[in-house]
Protein backbone atom coordinates (compact mmCIF):
# COMPACT_ATOMS: atom_id res chain seq x y z
CA UNK A 1 0.00 0.00 0.00
CA UNK A 2 1.14 3.50 -0.77
CA UNK A 3 2.57 5.50 2.05
CA UNK A 4 0.00 7.47 4.04
CA UNK A 5 0.28 11.16 3.32
CA UNK A 6 -1.45 14.02 5.05
CA UNK A 7 -1.99 15.79 1.70
CA UNK A 8 -3.98 12.87 0.33
CA UNK A 9 -6.27 12.80 3.33
CA UNK A 10 -6.75 16.54 3.08
CA UNK A 11 -7.64 16.12 -0.58
CA UNK A 12 -10.24 13.48 0.27
CA UNK A 13 -11.78 15.56 3.04
CA UNK A 14 -12.09 18.53 0.69
CA UNK A 15 -13.68 16.39 -1.97
CA UNK A 16 -16.25 15.10 0.48
CA UNK A 17 -16.99 18.62 1.71
CA UNK A 18 -17.50 19.84 -1.85
CA UNK A 19 -19.80 16.95 -2.65
CA UNK A 20 -21.77 17.70 0.52
CA UNK A 21 -22.26 21.36 -0.32
CA UNK A 22 -23.15 20.46 -3.89
CA UNK A 23 -25.71 18.00 -2.59
CA UNK A 24 -27.13 20.55 -0.19
CA UNK A 25 -27.65 23.13 -2.93
CA UNK A 26 -29.18 20.70 -5.38
CA UNK A 27 -31.37 19.24 -2.63
CA UNK A 28 -32.74 22.64 -1.65
CA UNK A 29 -33.46 23.49 -5.26
CA UNK A 30 -35.21 20.17 -5.82
CA UNK A 31 -37.20 20.50 -2.59
CA UNK A 32 -38.40 23.98 -3.51
CA UNK A 33 -39.36 22.82 -6.99
CA UNK A 34 -41.04 19.75 -5.57
CA UNK A 35 -43.07 21.83 -3.09
CA UNK A 36 -44.35 24.38 -5.55
CA UNK A 37 -44.94 21.74 -8.21
CA UNK A 38 -46.82 19.34 -5.95
CA UNK A 39 -48.92 22.04 -4.35
CA UNK A 40 -49.22 24.46 -7.25
CA UNK A 41 -49.66 22.22 -10.26
CA UNK A 42 -53.15 20.97 -9.29
CA UNK A 43 -54.34 24.58 -8.93
CA UNK A 44 -52.66 25.73 -12.10
CA UNK A 45 -55.12 26.21 -14.89
CA UNK A 46 -55.55 28.25 -18.01
CA UNK A 47 -58.01 30.35 -16.07
CA UNK A 48 -55.27 31.20 -13.57
CA UNK A 49 -53.04 32.79 -16.14
CA UNK A 50 -55.60 34.24 -18.53
CA UNK A 51 -58.03 36.03 -16.20
CA UNK A 52 -57.94 38.75 -13.64
CA UNK A 53 -59.50 38.01 -10.23
CA UNK A 54 -63.29 38.00 -10.20
CA UNK A 55 -65.37 38.95 -7.17
CA UNK A 56 -64.66 36.67 -4.25
CA UNK A 57 -61.41 35.36 -5.78
CA UNK A 58 -59.69 35.49 -2.43
CA UNK A 59 -62.47 33.35 -0.93
CA UNK A 60 -61.89 30.65 -3.52
CA UNK A 61 -64.21 31.92 -6.26
CA UNK A 62 -63.44 32.36 -9.95
CA UNK A 63 -60.71 34.29 -11.68
CA UNK A 64 -56.95 34.21 -12.09
CA UNK A 65 -53.83 36.20 -11.45
CA UNK A 66 -53.23 37.78 -14.84
CA UNK A 67 -53.15 41.14 -13.04
CA UNK A 68 -50.14 39.99 -11.02
CA UNK A 69 -48.36 38.37 -13.97
CA UNK A 70 -48.67 41.46 -16.15
CA UNK A 71 -47.99 43.73 -13.18
CA UNK A 72 -44.79 41.91 -12.26
CA UNK A 73 -43.55 42.05 -15.84
CA UNK A 74 -44.30 45.79 -16.04
CA UNK A 75 -42.58 46.45 -12.75
CA UNK A 76 -39.49 44.32 -13.33
CA UNK A 77 -39.01 45.34 -16.97
CA UNK A 78 -39.43 49.01 -16.10
CA UNK A 79 -37.14 48.81 -13.08
CA UNK A 80 -34.50 46.86 -14.99
CA UNK A 81 -34.65 49.31 -17.88
CA UNK A 82 -34.12 52.33 -15.64
CA UNK A 83 -31.41 50.58 -13.64
CA UNK A 84 -29.66 49.79 -16.94
CA UNK A 85 -29.84 53.42 -18.08
CA UNK A 86 -27.83 54.44 -15.04
CA UNK A 87 -25.89 51.29 -14.23
CA UNK A 88 -24.31 50.62 -17.60
CA UNK A 89 -22.74 54.06 -18.11
CA UNK A 90 -21.62 54.02 -14.48
CA UNK A 91 -19.91 50.65 -14.90
CA UNK A 92 -18.12 51.95 -18.02
CA UNK A 93 -17.19 55.16 -16.25
CA UNK A 94 -15.71 53.23 -13.34
CA UNK A 95 -13.48 51.26 -15.65
CA UNK A 96 -12.55 53.51 -18.55
CA UNK A 97 -12.11 56.90 -17.00
CA UNK A 98 -11.30 56.29 -13.39
CA UNK A 99 -10.56 52.65 -12.82
CA UNK A 100 -7.96 52.97 -10.09
CA UNK A 101 -8.93 56.24 -8.47
CA UNK A 102 -10.11 56.68 -4.89
CA UNK A 103 -13.39 57.94 -6.30
CA UNK A 104 -13.99 54.65 -8.10
CA UNK A 105 -13.24 52.69 -4.95
CA UNK A 106 -15.69 54.84 -3.02
CA UNK A 107 -18.41 54.26 -5.62
CA UNK A 108 -17.76 50.52 -5.54
CA UNK A 109 -17.93 50.49 -1.75
CA UNK A 110 -21.20 52.44 -1.79
CA UNK A 111 -22.70 50.08 -4.33
CA UNK A 112 -21.66 47.06 -2.28
CA UNK A 113 -23.32 48.55 0.79
CA UNK A 114 -26.47 49.33 -1.20
CA UNK A 115 -26.46 45.74 -2.48
CA UNK A 116 -26.72 44.56 1.10
CA UNK A 117 -29.58 46.87 2.09
CA UNK A 118 -32.75 44.80 2.71
CA UNK A 119 -35.45 45.39 0.15
CA UNK A 120 -38.01 46.46 2.77
CA UNK A 121 -35.75 49.46 3.41
CA UNK A 122 -35.93 50.38 -0.25
CA UNK A 123 -39.70 49.99 -0.01
CA UNK A 124 -39.90 52.24 3.01
CA UNK A 125 -37.57 54.77 1.41
CA UNK A 126 -39.59 54.80 -1.81
CA UNK A 127 -42.77 55.16 0.21
CA UNK A 128 -41.39 58.11 2.16
CA UNK A 129 -40.33 59.88 -1.01
CA UNK A 130 -43.72 59.19 -2.58
CA UNK A 131 -45.57 60.64 0.40
CA UNK A 132 -43.34 63.68 0.19
CA UNK A 133 -44.23 64.05 -3.51
CA UNK A 134 -47.89 63.36 -2.82
CA UNK A 135 -47.96 60.21 -4.98
CA UNK A 136 -50.19 57.25 -4.29
CA UNK A 137 -49.05 53.65 -4.64
CA UNK A 138 -48.47 53.34 -8.37
CA UNK A 139 -46.72 51.48 -11.14
CA UNK A 140 -44.21 54.33 -11.50
CA UNK A 141 -43.44 54.32 -7.78
CA UNK A 142 -42.88 50.56 -7.90
CA UNK A 143 -40.69 50.81 -11.00
CA UNK A 144 -38.50 53.52 -9.48
CA UNK A 145 -38.12 51.64 -6.21
CA UNK A 146 -37.21 48.45 -8.04
CA UNK A 147 -34.72 50.43 -10.13
CA UNK A 148 -33.05 51.55 -6.90
CA UNK A 149 -32.99 47.98 -5.66
CA UNK A 150 -31.56 46.64 -8.91
CA UNK A 151 -29.05 49.39 -9.66
CA UNK A 152 -26.25 48.28 -7.30
CA UNK A 153 -26.62 44.64 -8.29
CA UNK A 154 -26.51 45.35 -12.00
CA UNK A 155 -23.76 47.94 -11.82
CA UNK A 156 -21.41 45.85 -9.72
CA UNK A 157 -22.01 42.76 -11.84
CA UNK A 158 -21.21 44.76 -14.99
CA UNK A 159 -18.25 46.39 -13.29
CA UNK A 160 -16.73 43.00 -12.49
CA UNK A 161 -17.26 41.80 -16.06
CA UNK A 162 -15.68 44.91 -17.57
CA UNK A 163 -12.78 44.76 -15.13
CA UNK A 164 -11.86 41.35 -16.48
CA UNK A 165 -11.33 42.65 -20.01
CA UNK A 166 -7.65 42.14 -20.82
CA UNK A 167 -5.88 45.54 -21.03
CA UNK A 168 -4.53 44.67 -24.49
CA UNK A 169 -7.99 45.00 -25.96
CA UNK A 170 -8.60 48.68 -25.18
CA UNK A 171 -4.98 49.28 -26.17
CA UNK A 172 -5.61 47.81 -29.59
CA UNK A 173 -8.46 50.30 -29.95
CA UNK A 174 -6.40 53.23 -28.67
CA UNK A 175 -3.65 52.34 -31.13
CA UNK A 176 -6.13 52.96 -33.94
CA UNK A 177 -6.81 56.43 -32.59
CA UNK A 178 -10.04 55.61 -30.75
CA UNK A 179 -11.23 57.99 -28.10
CA UNK A 180 -12.18 56.67 -24.67
CA UNK A 181 -15.86 56.59 -25.49
CA UNK A 182 -15.36 54.85 -28.84
CA UNK A 183 -13.27 52.26 -27.04
CA UNK A 184 -15.91 51.89 -24.34
CA UNK A 185 -18.98 51.60 -26.55
CA UNK A 186 -17.68 49.88 -29.67
CA UNK A 187 -14.94 47.62 -28.37
CA UNK A 188 -15.29 46.88 -24.66
CA UNK A 189 -19.06 46.67 -24.78
CA UNK A 190 -18.91 44.17 -27.62
CA UNK A 191 -16.38 42.09 -25.77
CA UNK A 192 -18.49 41.89 -22.60
CA UNK A 193 -21.99 41.60 -24.13
CA UNK A 194 -22.66 38.15 -22.66
CA UNK A 195 -21.59 39.35 -19.23
CA UNK A 196 -23.79 42.41 -19.54
CA UNK A 197 -26.74 40.18 -20.38
CA UNK A 198 -26.04 38.12 -17.27
CA UNK A 199 -25.86 41.25 -15.12
CA UNK A 200 -29.18 42.51 -16.47
CA UNK A 201 -30.75 39.13 -15.86
CA UNK A 202 -29.42 38.96 -12.31
CA UNK A 203 -30.96 42.33 -11.53
CA UNK A 204 -34.20 41.42 -13.30
CA UNK A 205 -34.48 38.20 -11.31
CA UNK A 206 -33.99 40.10 -8.07
CA UNK A 207 -36.56 42.69 -9.12
CA UNK A 208 -39.31 40.37 -10.27
CA UNK A 209 -39.05 38.22 -7.17
CA UNK A 210 -39.05 40.98 -4.61
CA UNK A 211 -42.16 41.56 -2.52
CA UNK A 212 -41.10 43.98 0.19
CA UNK A 213 -40.02 46.86 -2.04
CA UNK A 214 -43.29 46.93 -3.99
CA UNK A 215 -45.56 46.34 -0.99
CA UNK A 216 -46.00 50.04 -0.18
CA UNK A 217 -44.88 51.60 -3.42
CA UNK A 218 -46.82 49.72 -6.08
CA UNK A 219 -49.79 48.69 -4.00
CA UNK A 220 -52.06 45.89 -5.12
CA UNK A 221 -55.07 45.80 -7.36
CA UNK A 222 -57.23 43.31 -9.19
CA UNK A 223 -56.96 45.22 -12.41
CA UNK A 224 -54.24 45.55 -14.98
CA UNK A 225 -52.92 49.11 -14.68
CA UNK A 226 -53.78 51.48 -17.49
CA UNK A 227 -51.36 54.24 -16.57
CA UNK A 228 -48.07 54.74 -14.75
CA UNK A 229 -49.98 56.26 -11.87
CA UNK A 230 -52.39 53.41 -11.21
CA UNK A 231 -51.57 50.85 -8.58
CA UNK A 232 -50.36 47.49 -9.83
CA UNK A 233 -50.34 43.92 -8.59
CA UNK A 234 -47.26 41.70 -8.54
CA UNK A 235 -46.64 37.96 -8.31
CA UNK A 236 -44.72 37.95 -5.02
CA UNK A 237 -47.54 39.88 -3.36
CA UNK A 238 -50.11 37.60 -5.00
CA UNK A 239 -48.33 34.70 -3.34
CA UNK A 240 -48.17 36.57 -0.05
CA UNK A 241 -51.85 37.57 0.05
CA UNK A 242 -53.19 34.23 -1.05
CA UNK A 243 -51.03 32.30 1.41
CA UNK A 244 -52.38 34.58 4.12
CA UNK A 245 -56.01 33.47 3.61
CA UNK A 246 -57.49 30.69 5.71
CA UNK A 247 -58.85 28.84 2.66
CA UNK A 248 -56.85 25.80 1.49
CA UNK A 249 -57.89 26.21 -2.17
CA UNK A 250 -56.70 29.82 -2.18
CA UNK A 251 -53.46 28.79 -0.51
CA UNK A 252 -52.99 26.26 -3.28
CA UNK A 253 -53.36 29.04 -5.80
CA UNK A 254 -50.54 30.82 -4.00
CA UNK A 255 -48.30 27.89 -4.88
CA UNK A 256 -49.54 28.06 -8.46
CA UNK A 257 -48.60 31.75 -8.51
CA UNK A 258 -45.17 30.87 -7.12
CA UNK A 259 -44.84 28.27 -9.86
CA UNK A 260 -45.69 30.86 -12.50
CA UNK A 261 -43.12 33.24 -11.02
CA UNK A 262 -40.46 30.53 -11.04
CA UNK A 263 -41.26 29.49 -14.59
CA UNK A 264 -41.15 33.12 -15.77
CA UNK A 265 -37.70 33.62 -14.27
CA UNK A 266 -36.55 30.26 -15.63
CA UNK A 267 -37.86 31.09 -19.10
CA UNK A 268 -36.16 34.46 -19.16
CA UNK A 269 -32.98 32.87 -17.85
CA UNK A 270 -32.88 30.26 -20.60
CA UNK A 271 -33.75 32.88 -23.22
CA UNK A 272 -30.94 35.15 -22.09
CA UNK A 273 -28.45 32.27 -22.03
CA UNK A 274 -29.25 31.77 -25.68
CA UNK A 275 -28.86 35.47 -26.36
CA UNK A 276 -25.57 35.56 -24.43
CA UNK A 277 -24.21 32.76 -26.52
CA UNK A 278 -25.22 34.57 -29.68
CA UNK A 279 -23.85 37.91 -28.48
CA UNK A 280 -20.60 36.34 -27.37
CA UNK A 281 -19.63 34.86 -30.70
CA UNK A 282 -17.23 37.72 -31.42
CA UNK A 283 -15.66 37.91 -27.97
CA UNK A 284 -11.91 37.41 -27.85
CA UNK A 285 -10.96 34.68 -25.43
Amino acid at each position, binding site marked *: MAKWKWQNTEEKVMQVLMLLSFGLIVMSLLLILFTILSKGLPALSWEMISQTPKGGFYFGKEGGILNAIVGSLYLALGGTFIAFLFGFPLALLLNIYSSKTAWADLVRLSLDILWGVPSIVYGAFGFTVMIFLGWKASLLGGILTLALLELPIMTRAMDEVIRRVPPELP*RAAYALGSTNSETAFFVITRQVLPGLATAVLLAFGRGIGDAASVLFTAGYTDRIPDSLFSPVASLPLAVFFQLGTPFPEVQQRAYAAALILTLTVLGISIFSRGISYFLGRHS*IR
Partner: protein
Amino acid sequence: MSRLIPHLETQNLSAYYGATKAIEDVSIIIPRNQITVIIGPSGCGKTTLLKCLNRFIELEEHARVEGKVLLNGEDIYSPLIDVTEVRKKSGLLAQRPYPLPMSIFDNVAYGMRIHGLCSRRELAQKVQYYLQVAGLWEEVKDRLHAPASQLSIGQQQRLCLARGLAVEPEIILGDEPTSALDPISAQHIEQRLIELKQQYTVVLVSHILRQARRLADYVVFMYMGKVVEAGPAQQVLNHPQHERTRAYLSGEF
Protein backbone atom coordinates in the same frame (compact mmCIF):
# COMPACT_ATOMS: atom_id res chain seq x y z
CA MET B 1 23.54 55.65 -50.01
CA SER B 2 20.44 57.83 -50.03
CA ARG B 3 20.22 60.77 -47.71
CA LEU B 4 18.33 60.12 -44.47
CA ILE B 5 15.22 62.25 -44.12
CA PRO B 6 13.99 62.12 -40.53
CA HIS B 7 10.31 61.28 -40.12
CA LEU B 8 10.39 60.99 -36.38
CA GLU B 9 12.94 62.52 -34.12
CA THR B 10 13.41 62.32 -30.38
CA GLN B 11 15.19 65.07 -28.47
CA ASN B 12 16.54 64.36 -24.98
CA LEU B 13 13.72 61.94 -24.39
CA SER B 14 13.51 60.38 -20.93
CA ALA B 15 10.72 58.24 -19.53
CA TYR B 16 10.03 57.23 -15.96
CA TYR B 17 7.78 54.68 -14.30
CA GLY B 18 7.30 56.24 -10.90
CA ALA B 19 10.82 56.84 -9.66
CA THR B 20 12.42 54.34 -12.04
CA LYS B 21 14.05 55.77 -15.10
CA ALA B 22 13.31 53.49 -18.05
CA ILE B 23 15.01 55.48 -20.79
CA GLU B 24 17.37 58.38 -20.47
CA ASP B 25 18.25 61.23 -22.76
CA VAL B 26 17.44 59.50 -26.03
CA SER B 27 18.07 61.63 -29.11
CA ILE B 28 17.66 59.70 -32.32
CA ILE B 29 16.12 60.08 -35.74
CA ILE B 30 13.83 57.60 -37.45
CA PRO B 31 14.41 57.94 -41.19
CA ARG B 32 11.47 58.14 -43.56
CA ASN B 33 10.51 55.11 -45.69
CA GLN B 34 13.04 52.87 -44.03
CA ILE B 35 12.86 50.09 -41.51
CA THR B 36 14.41 51.12 -38.24
CA VAL B 37 15.07 48.28 -35.83
CA ILE B 38 15.65 48.96 -32.15
CA ILE B 39 17.83 46.23 -30.66
CA GLY B 40 19.29 45.56 -27.27
CA PRO B 41 19.12 43.13 -24.35
CA SER B 42 15.78 42.70 -22.57
CA GLY B 43 14.97 45.41 -20.08
CA CYS B 44 17.05 47.99 -21.91
CA GLY B 45 14.08 50.24 -22.67
CA LYS B 46 13.37 49.27 -26.31
CA THR B 47 9.64 48.86 -25.77
CA THR B 48 9.43 51.99 -23.61
CA LEU B 49 11.04 53.99 -26.40
CA LEU B 50 8.54 52.57 -28.87
CA LYS B 51 5.66 53.42 -26.54
CA CYS B 52 6.88 57.00 -26.38
CA LEU B 53 6.53 57.29 -30.15
CA ASN B 54 2.72 56.98 -30.14
CA ARG B 55 2.09 58.25 -26.61
CA PHE B 56 1.17 54.76 -25.42
CA ILE B 57 3.44 55.41 -22.48
CA GLU B 58 0.61 57.52 -21.04
CA LEU B 59 -1.50 54.40 -20.58
CA GLU B 60 1.00 53.07 -18.05
CA GLU B 61 0.47 53.91 -14.43
CA HIS B 62 2.67 56.66 -12.99
CA ALA B 63 4.54 57.07 -16.27
CA ARG B 64 6.16 60.39 -17.04
CA VAL B 65 7.95 61.65 -20.12
CA GLU B 66 10.49 64.42 -20.54
CA GLY B 67 11.91 65.75 -23.77
CA LYS B 68 10.42 65.88 -27.22
CA VAL B 69 9.23 63.51 -29.92
CA LEU B 70 8.92 65.30 -33.23
CA LEU B 71 6.69 63.85 -35.92
CA ASN B 72 7.26 65.78 -39.14
CA GLY B 73 8.88 68.41 -36.97
CA GLU B 74 5.92 68.77 -34.61
CA ASP B 75 6.17 67.77 -30.94
CA ILE B 76 3.56 65.05 -30.29
CA TYR B 77 3.64 65.81 -26.56
CA SER B 78 2.64 69.41 -27.12
CA PRO B 79 -0.63 70.24 -25.33
CA LEU B 80 -2.04 71.47 -28.64
CA ILE B 81 -1.85 68.01 -30.16
CA ASP B 82 -4.76 65.58 -30.00
CA VAL B 83 -3.55 62.23 -28.74
CA THR B 84 -5.94 60.28 -30.98
CA GLU B 85 -4.44 62.05 -34.01
CA VAL B 86 -0.96 60.96 -32.93
CA ARG B 87 -2.07 57.37 -32.55
CA LYS B 88 -3.97 57.41 -35.81
CA LYS B 89 -0.76 58.39 -37.59
CA SER B 90 0.99 55.26 -36.37
CA GLY B 91 -0.18 51.71 -36.77
CA LEU B 92 0.85 49.41 -33.94
CA LEU B 93 1.65 45.73 -34.08
CA ALA B 94 1.82 44.26 -30.59
CA GLN B 95 3.74 41.18 -29.47
CA ARG B 96 0.57 39.17 -29.45
CA PRO B 97 -2.14 40.10 -31.91
CA TYR B 98 -5.35 41.24 -30.29
CA PRO B 99 -8.22 41.38 -32.77
CA LEU B 100 -11.21 43.49 -31.84
CA PRO B 101 -14.26 41.50 -30.70
CA MET B 102 -16.01 41.68 -34.07
CA SER B 103 -15.95 40.09 -37.49
CA ILE B 104 -12.90 40.06 -39.76
CA PHE B 105 -14.52 42.68 -41.97
CA ASP B 106 -15.45 44.95 -39.05
CA ASN B 107 -11.94 44.72 -37.61
CA VAL B 108 -10.57 46.39 -40.72
CA ALA B 109 -13.57 48.69 -41.13
CA TYR B 110 -13.52 49.84 -37.49
CA GLY B 111 -10.79 52.47 -37.85
CA MET B 112 -12.20 53.83 -41.10
CA ARG B 113 -15.61 54.11 -39.49
CA ILE B 114 -14.56 55.94 -36.33
CA HIS B 115 -12.44 58.37 -38.31
CA GLY B 116 -14.99 58.72 -41.11
CA LEU B 117 -12.33 57.91 -43.68
CA CYS B 118 -14.54 56.62 -46.44
CA SER B 119 -18.11 56.41 -47.59
CA ARG B 120 -20.29 53.41 -46.99
CA ARG B 121 -20.01 52.47 -50.66
CA GLU B 122 -16.24 52.41 -50.71
CA LEU B 123 -15.95 50.52 -47.45
CA ALA B 124 -16.04 46.97 -48.81
CA GLN B 125 -13.53 47.88 -51.49
CA LYS B 126 -11.16 49.44 -48.98
CA VAL B 127 -11.43 46.52 -46.59
CA GLN B 128 -10.50 44.21 -49.44
CA TYR B 129 -7.60 46.46 -50.41
CA TYR B 130 -6.06 46.52 -46.94
CA LEU B 131 -6.57 42.80 -46.44
CA GLN B 132 -4.73 42.31 -49.73
CA VAL B 133 -1.89 44.58 -48.65
CA ALA B 134 -1.59 42.58 -45.44
CA GLY B 135 -1.58 39.37 -47.47
CA LEU B 136 -4.67 37.95 -45.81
CA TRP B 137 -7.38 38.44 -48.42
CA GLU B 138 -7.10 35.07 -50.17
CA GLU B 139 -7.44 33.22 -46.86
CA VAL B 140 -10.47 35.10 -45.55
CA LYS B 141 -12.42 36.33 -48.58
CA ASP B 142 -15.09 33.66 -48.11
CA ARG B 143 -15.61 34.28 -44.41
CA LEU B 144 -15.35 38.01 -43.94
CA HIS B 145 -18.18 38.02 -41.45
CA ALA B 146 -16.84 35.24 -39.26
CA PRO B 147 -15.47 36.24 -35.83
CA ALA B 148 -11.87 37.39 -36.03
CA SER B 149 -11.07 35.18 -33.05
CA GLN B 150 -11.43 32.12 -35.28
CA LEU B 151 -8.29 33.03 -37.24
CA SER B 152 -4.95 31.45 -36.45
CA ILE B 153 -2.56 33.63 -34.51
CA GLY B 154 -0.44 34.32 -37.60
CA GLN B 155 -3.54 35.36 -39.52
CA GLN B 156 -4.63 37.51 -36.59
CA GLN B 157 -1.34 39.40 -36.71
CA ARG B 158 -1.83 40.10 -40.41
CA LEU B 159 -5.39 41.19 -39.63
CA CYS B 160 -3.99 43.60 -37.05
CA LEU B 161 -1.65 44.90 -39.73
CA ALA B 162 -4.57 45.43 -42.13
CA ARG B 163 -6.57 47.07 -39.35
CA GLY B 164 -3.70 49.41 -38.56
CA LEU B 165 -3.12 50.33 -42.21
CA ALA B 166 -6.78 51.11 -42.70
CA VAL B 167 -6.57 54.27 -40.60
CA GLU B 168 -4.00 55.58 -43.11
CA PRO B 169 -1.02 55.95 -40.78
CA GLU B 170 2.39 57.28 -41.77
CA ILE B 171 4.34 55.05 -39.47
CA ILE B 172 4.11 51.40 -38.50
CA LEU B 173 5.37 50.51 -35.04
CA GLY B 174 6.05 46.89 -34.20
CA ASP B 175 6.84 45.60 -30.72
CA GLU B 176 8.44 42.25 -31.53
CA PRO B 177 5.49 41.55 -33.83
CA THR B 178 6.72 38.11 -34.83
CA SER B 179 7.71 36.80 -31.41
CA ALA B 180 4.46 34.91 -30.80
CA LEU B 181 4.22 33.56 -34.35
CA ASP B 182 5.38 30.36 -35.99
CA PRO B 183 8.30 30.74 -38.45
CA ILE B 184 6.11 30.72 -41.58
CA SER B 185 3.76 33.39 -40.19
CA ALA B 186 6.74 35.41 -39.03
CA GLN B 187 8.15 35.28 -42.53
CA HIS B 188 4.81 36.49 -43.90
CA ILE B 189 4.87 39.51 -41.61
CA GLU B 190 8.51 40.32 -42.37
CA GLN B 191 7.80 40.13 -46.10
CA ARG B 192 4.86 42.54 -45.71
CA LEU B 193 6.98 44.99 -43.72
CA ILE B 194 9.66 45.04 -46.43
CA GLU B 195 6.99 45.81 -49.04
CA LEU B 196 5.38 48.45 -46.86
CA LYS B 197 8.45 50.60 -46.42
CA GLN B 198 7.82 52.01 -49.89
CA GLN B 199 4.93 53.95 -48.42
CA TYR B 200 5.46 53.90 -44.68
CA THR B 201 8.14 54.40 -42.12
CA VAL B 202 8.58 51.26 -40.06
CA VAL B 203 9.96 51.05 -36.53
CA LEU B 204 10.48 47.62 -35.00
CA VAL B 205 11.61 46.44 -31.63
CA SER B 206 13.41 43.14 -31.96
CA HIS B 207 15.51 40.95 -29.79
CA ILE B 208 16.38 38.67 -32.67
CA LEU B 209 19.63 39.80 -34.23
CA ARG B 210 19.09 37.82 -37.39
CA GLN B 211 15.76 39.55 -37.86
CA ALA B 212 17.49 42.90 -37.51
CA ARG B 213 20.01 41.86 -40.14
CA ARG B 214 17.26 40.74 -42.49
CA LEU B 215 15.05 43.82 -42.15
CA ALA B 216 16.91 46.81 -40.85
CA ASP B 217 17.95 49.82 -42.90
CA TYR B 218 18.68 51.75 -39.77
CA VAL B 219 19.57 50.39 -36.35
CA VAL B 220 19.30 51.80 -32.84
CA PHE B 221 21.18 49.84 -30.20
CA MET B 222 20.09 50.43 -26.62
CA TYR B 223 21.63 49.36 -23.36
CA MET B 224 20.44 50.16 -19.83
CA GLY B 225 17.98 52.79 -21.00
CA LYS B 226 20.43 54.68 -23.17
CA VAL B 227 21.13 54.69 -26.87
CA VAL B 228 24.64 53.42 -27.33
CA GLU B 229 24.79 53.58 -31.07
CA ALA B 230 22.43 54.47 -33.89
CA GLY B 231 23.00 54.61 -37.61
CA PRO B 232 22.54 52.85 -40.94
CA ALA B 233 22.29 49.10 -40.52
CA GLN B 234 25.40 48.40 -42.58
CA GLN B 235 27.47 50.53 -40.32
CA VAL B 236 26.09 49.53 -36.92
CA LEU B 237 25.77 45.81 -37.56
CA ASN B 238 29.00 45.32 -39.50
CA HIS B 239 31.30 48.02 -38.21
CA PRO B 240 30.08 48.95 -34.73
CA GLN B 241 31.93 51.85 -33.18
CA HIS B 242 31.28 51.01 -29.55
CA GLU B 243 32.66 48.25 -27.42
CA ARG B 244 29.20 47.42 -26.04
CA THR B 245 27.63 47.12 -29.47
CA ARG B 246 30.42 44.82 -30.55
CA ALA B 247 29.94 42.71 -27.45
CA TYR B 248 26.18 42.48 -27.99
CA LEU B 249 26.52 41.63 -31.67
CA SER B 250 28.97 38.87 -30.92
CA GLY B 251 26.50 37.40 -28.44
CA GLU B 252 28.35 38.19 -25.25
CA PHE B 253 25.15 39.27 -23.45
